[in-house]
């Protein structure tokens, strides 16, 4: 037996990987995201100074290309003499942590609720979907702001609030896919041989919904970074002296005329990180979702 393998007949997984690799936006996104992840992991080695160390003599120093800038503080310093570059590098840790934790909460809860909803249908489906509708009845960011306002401002509460507001996105995707998959023969076959519900769901059905889930996870990481920065900007997320991009922008408002660079760089960092995840998400969607492929 055993025909020689056709080299063009690859496993769909590798087909998707190579689709992804040919997609320029995805590769650009991947490069940016990897850059930020490496920055977060190796923050202590990369940052030239302690992000929390204040210095009386180095207050509000301009970046190096400015006439009075020095190589000691490449991107300048803030009003307490803390090195902006180091704070941005450590800020990647905070932002990525927030993104991972809040999207993790949303992913876990959303997948679970979506599975129950799509698999058991009936009462549980209606109940869960109505609750999702309630969460979606709050406009962008408002629910997160309100939850944190009531629970008290802290990074932990911000992560939880963002996580809760993202649950419906995941629940809806999983429910839709599960409903679709349940109609297929393999599910019926699995039921016929007496497989348990959780086995059918998690080993049979769920792997088939992974494509849209991965896309949603990536895009949600982008919006989680953005929302966390907004919450911190409003004073509801990371508390000082944590080096967090949104919080850095908030405190630099007072310096807007004297030292505009203090405000500029954290904003660019947020924009780049969010852009990276969005590019990657768009590219993944093109590669993983065959329905959208040309």
């Amino acid at each position, binding site marked *: 037996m055993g025909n020689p393998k056709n080299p063009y007949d690859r496993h769909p997984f590798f087909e998707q990987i190579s689709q992804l690799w040919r997609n320029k936006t995805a590769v650009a996104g991947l490069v940016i995201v990897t850059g930020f992840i490496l920055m977060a992991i190796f923050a202590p080695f990369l940052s030239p100074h302690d992000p929390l160390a204040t210095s009386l003599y180095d207050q509000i120093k301009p970046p190096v290309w400015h006439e009075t800038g020095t190589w000691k503080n490449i991107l300048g310093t803030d009003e307490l003499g803390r090195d902006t570059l180091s704070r941005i590098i450590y800020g990647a840790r905070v932002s990525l942590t927030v993104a991972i934790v809040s999207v993790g909460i949303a992913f876990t809860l959303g997948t679970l609720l979506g599975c129950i909803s799509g698999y058991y249908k009936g009462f549980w489906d209606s109940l869960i979907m109505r609750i999702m509708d*309630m969460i979606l*009845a709050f406009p*962008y960011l408002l629910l997160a702001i309100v939850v944190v*306002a009531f629970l008290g401002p802290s990074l932990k509460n911000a992560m939880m609030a963002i996580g809760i507001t993202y649950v419906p996105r995941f629940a809806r995707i999983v429910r839709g896919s599960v409903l679709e998959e349940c109609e297929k023969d393999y599910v019926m076959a699995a039921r016929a041989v007496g497989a348990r519900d959780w086995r059918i769901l998690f080993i049979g059905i769920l792997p088939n919904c992974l494509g849209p889930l991965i896309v949603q996870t990536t895009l949600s990481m982008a919006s989680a970074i953005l929302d966390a920065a*907004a919450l911190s900007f409003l004073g509801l997320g990371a508390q000082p002296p944590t080096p967090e991009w949104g919080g850095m922008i908030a405190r630099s408002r007072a310096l*807007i005329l004297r030292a505009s660079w203090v405000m500029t760089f954290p904003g660019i960092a947020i*924009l780049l990180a969010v852009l990276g995840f969005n*590019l990657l998400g768009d590219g993944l969607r093109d590669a993983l979702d065959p329905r959208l492929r040309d």
Partner: protein
Amino acid sequence: MLAYILRRIMIMIPTLLGVTIIVFLMLHATPGDPAELLLGERATNESLEQMREHLGLNEPLYVQYGLFLSRLLKGDLGETIWTRQKVWIEIKHRFPATIELSLVALCISCFAGMLLGIISATKQYSIFDYVSMIGALAGVSMPIFWLGLVFMLIFSLNLGWLPLSGRLSIGVDLDVITNFYIVDAVITRNWPAFKDAVWHIIMPAVTLSTIPTAIVARMTRSAMLDVLRQDYIKTAKAKGLSQLQVIFKHALRNAMIPVVTTIGLQFGVLLGGAILTESIFAWPGVGKWMYDAVMQRDYMVIQGGTLFIASLFVVINLCVDVLYAVINPRISIQ
């Protein structure tokens, strides 16, 4: 059609009830005594006891919720903690400023977004297409609170073209009728005030419109591309119609259907974004008022404002759904 609208309204009711449940429970999830939270630290024992009685805090939770709901139906959102004003009156007073800002931002994003989308679609894979789509992606990824500060720095502090913040300059007289300053200025033919109001609204409105513009541009482009591939477009071209006629008479009409829905959904982004934008530009609307309330822990204001904005959002979404059914003859109203 009427039956469809009625059924949609029926579906809306449980969602609205859900909103009230979430807002109600939030106060109870907060550590501490709700009466104390609502009255602030200055409250006397007597007024605290009165508040407990009023909220029914000694009753079981469902009775409290019933009381909460019956107060809501009477239009009673309570009083603010610091200024002792009726929350509902404060909202009515500030709401026009928010709507004015949101509507101008929505107009900007419709116009700019659709224009970018249409040109990108008709010139697919051109430099213009690449640049505007990268721009749109950057727009979706934009921290608007930062963009607002950058605009302020460039156009107001450095170039001095636009006013820094607020709705009107000090010293500009305007008879307030509707509280929509631009409309008021037109009604009273007060052209200096009109110019001043327009000048003030440009920066916050452009800031607020960033994300919706980008979303509308992306949606318009993909909807147009879908339509331009269809056979009837080929027929229209074959018949010798000009490019403009093909695009505006034949393609755009059908491409508009998903775009209109997208535009409607942007209201949510605008209402949420208003909290950020208004607090940066000191725009005296509901958003800035809620931001101040969050800072001062005025839970009555947060509760009332949230209920109001969320209910508004639900109603707008209903209108968008109905509009979608009206403009799309293909949708089955089942």
